[in-house]
């Protein structure tokens, strides 16, 4: 089978790796790069457990061929924390019990993180629309709404204090 070398940015690191044409991005991440945080719930794009950011946009990594990630930047759940510090939404997910078994959580967090990057004050409706492709069987979605709104408030507070003009 023909293997091709692809180069892409994964969680801020440049990576060069061999991939096969029939390999999905999900398989590459989990099996070749050891990034098992992203989960396989269905392999058919129906559940969202495999959601990662591809060039900043949430996608089902089971529905992207590895070779299609050439030259792109990919962010997985392992890339949300910076220098050991959890992103606010990771922390608020735990505080608000936005998950129980946690299997849907990596994909769910990526979708929520993407929302927060473009919307600093999301409404309940906007959050539900953002996670409409992420399936959770344990917990429903209210905890997620709560966690995202809490994280948004924290981020607004941080950004406003950082952006405050000097007296």
């Amino acid at each position, binding site marked *: 089978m023909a293997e091709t070398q692809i180069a892409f940015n994964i969680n801020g690191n440049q990576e060069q790796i061999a991939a096969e044409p029939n390999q999905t991005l999900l398989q590459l991440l*989990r099996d070749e790069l*050891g*990034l*098992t*945080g*992203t*989960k*396989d*719930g*269905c*392999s*058919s794009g*129906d*559940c969202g*457990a495999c959601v990662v950011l591809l060039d900043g946009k949430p996608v089902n990594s089971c529905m992207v061929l590895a070779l299609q990630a050439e030259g792109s930047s990919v962010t*997985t*759940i*392992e890339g*949300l*924390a910076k220098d050991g510090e*959890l992103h606010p939404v*990771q*922390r608020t*997910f*735990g*505080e*608000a*019990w936005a*998950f*129980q*078994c*946690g*299997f*849907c*959580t*990596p994909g769910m*967090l990526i979708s929520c993180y993407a929302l927060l990057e473009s919307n600093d004050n999301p409404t*309940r409706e906007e959050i*539900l*629309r953002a*996670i*409409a*492709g*992420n*399936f*959770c*069987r*344990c*917990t*429903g*979605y*209210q*905890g*997620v709404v709560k966690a995202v709104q809490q994280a948004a408030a924290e981020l607004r507070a941080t950004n406003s204090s950082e952006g405050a003009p000097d007296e």
Partner: protein
Amino acid sequence: MSELAIVGQWAASPGAEEIVTGEARYCPDIRLPGMLCGKLLYSPHARARVKKLDVSKAREMDGVFAVLTHADVPGENSYLYAQPDQPLLVVDEVRFQGDAVAAVAARDARTADAALAAIDVEYEELPGVFDPLEAMQRDPDSVMTNQVYRSGDVAAAIASADVVIENTYRTQWAEHAFLETEGGVGLVDDDGGITVYSSCQAPHRDRMQIARALAMPESMVRVITPYIGGAFGAKDEAHVQIHAGLLAHAARRPVHLIRERRESILTHVKRHPFVVEYTTAATSEGKLLAVKARAIADAGPYTNSTHEVLNKFGEFIGGPYKVENIEVEKIGVRTNNPITGAFRGFGAPQAAFVYESQMDDLARQLGMDPLEIRLLNGVETGTKMYTGVVVREGTAMKASLNKAAEMIDWQSRDQLEREPASHLRRGWGVATILKGSGLGRGLSDHAGVMLEMHRDGSVVLHSAAADMGQGITTVMAQLAAERLGVDMASVRVVRADTSKSPDAGGTSASRQAMVSGNAVLEAADSIRNTLLKLAAGKTRIEMDRLDLKAGKLLVDGEPHELSVSDLAQRAGNWGYPLHAESLVHFEYPSDVPEVSYRYSQEVFQFCTQIAQVLVDCETGQVSVERMIAVHDAGKMINPGGVYGQIEGGVAQGIGYALTEELVVQEGHTLNPSLENYVIPMALDIPEIEMEVLEFPEPIGAPLGAKGIAESPIIPTAPAIRNAIYDAIGKPLYELPMTAERVLPIPDGN
């Protein structure tokens, strides 16, 4: 003891950070050196004779390390939940679309697929049995179980009644759809023992089954649960973990066996579909006189938990009501349809759909308010149920009804428009239910933990209670931390490992918070006692004035300079063991006479849900606008977990009510995917308005806490059904209440 500092407070679960960073390892994430890929070959037919099974070509393939058929199983070739009638690998006849015929272990997935394709198997299709009612009539042997329970004099009660209502109800196969499919990783230890990482609900039972299949002593088998991505009952009985052990044993290499989603839906147990003929007899004032039920469950080909599910169904078919005359016939029929097993509620959701729908039919016939008729008949503390069980704490039954009614403003609900547009109708429906926690009287319901505090005050807790998300790990950490006066972060809960933790029984029947909770309290109290004795000795203050809280010793409620870790250090220096192992049995009072129902549960989860729906009269689509859920937890130990269980259960209940249905034709499942097995998602579920009541369970429950895991899924379907009836005047007797079944809307609506 002072006020609770940790129990009852919102606390993130001990594993939260692993989960949100992606570090939590589930079975599919386990990587071991030399690990092989395991796969199973499943029958495409619902019923067929295996004419030929030749695996020689597959065995010879390069990169294939083991190929197994029934002949290669060293020990017992059966699942062993109840009857040993489901084979691990089929011997001569496949009995459902999903029976496993062979197992392979190969260097990678591609080779494993090629090995499966190289297996030469020939089937001779046989006529299958797909209609349980027809099967019963044609062949008495197809009846797996037929039990009748009677109490009182039903015939006389019916004869004397003012009103008698009879209806036939039908419920569907439901799929658990946990996010993490079934999986197991088997490996051979250095001394020839077998270790299996198992995504399961009952590690010790898994160990027994794996040992029996391998014809090895249990001492040579170890089962560990990594993180588990949901189960809801389907992983109570074993699935592929035994095969993972068999393959590892045969290949002498670690084997990773994870089902794909389509395989998972086709092969694992489903909720039993029921057909129930139900009769209710009442006075003209609405007082229930008698209940009679004839229930036929489609069991699929194998026994699994059919007896137990029917038993629970019959136990609760009278509802949370004072009913003195009852007759319930419980029939399980063998077919070649999908296999059945445990699913959250375990017969109670089917029962509730029946009795709560019928309550509304009765109320309507008598011109009574649905709330009033339920309050009239509701059980109370001290009520003797038809099963002979006396309700020890029954306040929650009516309290939950009244609270739910208050939350939706039941008396004034009509002030919101019933007809917001010409094609839309709004309605409200209530359902109130009961479910028991614990395995039931007559069964041994026990669990143990091992607890140890180290010199620095840090704590390790070993428990084999499987946490598949429902939160037992958090509950145990909270109870231990509370009693030992330390913070949650100081308690390390080690995930279930049969070589390290005592048997905690299965995670089912809403039992773990109660039984393992008690085990934690007992072990913690033992260590606490040692610490307080040491403190009394050092401070020369009587023990009853001492307490442990927030890492400190308290004297008369005030913090002392001695910390918990000081005391632990002292214990270590002076050789006082801070180590305890407990084994606790859930005891049923022996002073209750006349408990006549087998394995009756006596700790009740009472709850009420009210649904407000909007029906589109032209399309039949039902939108749930509001959902009120009031649940009694006895004592809420872990609020995050309790609310999460309620929300998640209600979401499952909405799916069970409106859209979830395995479509099966001649034993073949037509929608084995998450695309076509329709589960509500974020935009389909309203904000669930929850209230948790706390009426402490007086006997045997830790701090009064009873399990609430199953109750949330139980009242939802009948509440929605009753709301639809209220909206469009059409009673429905079949689940799910899809748009096509809601139509046509009766005239005048």
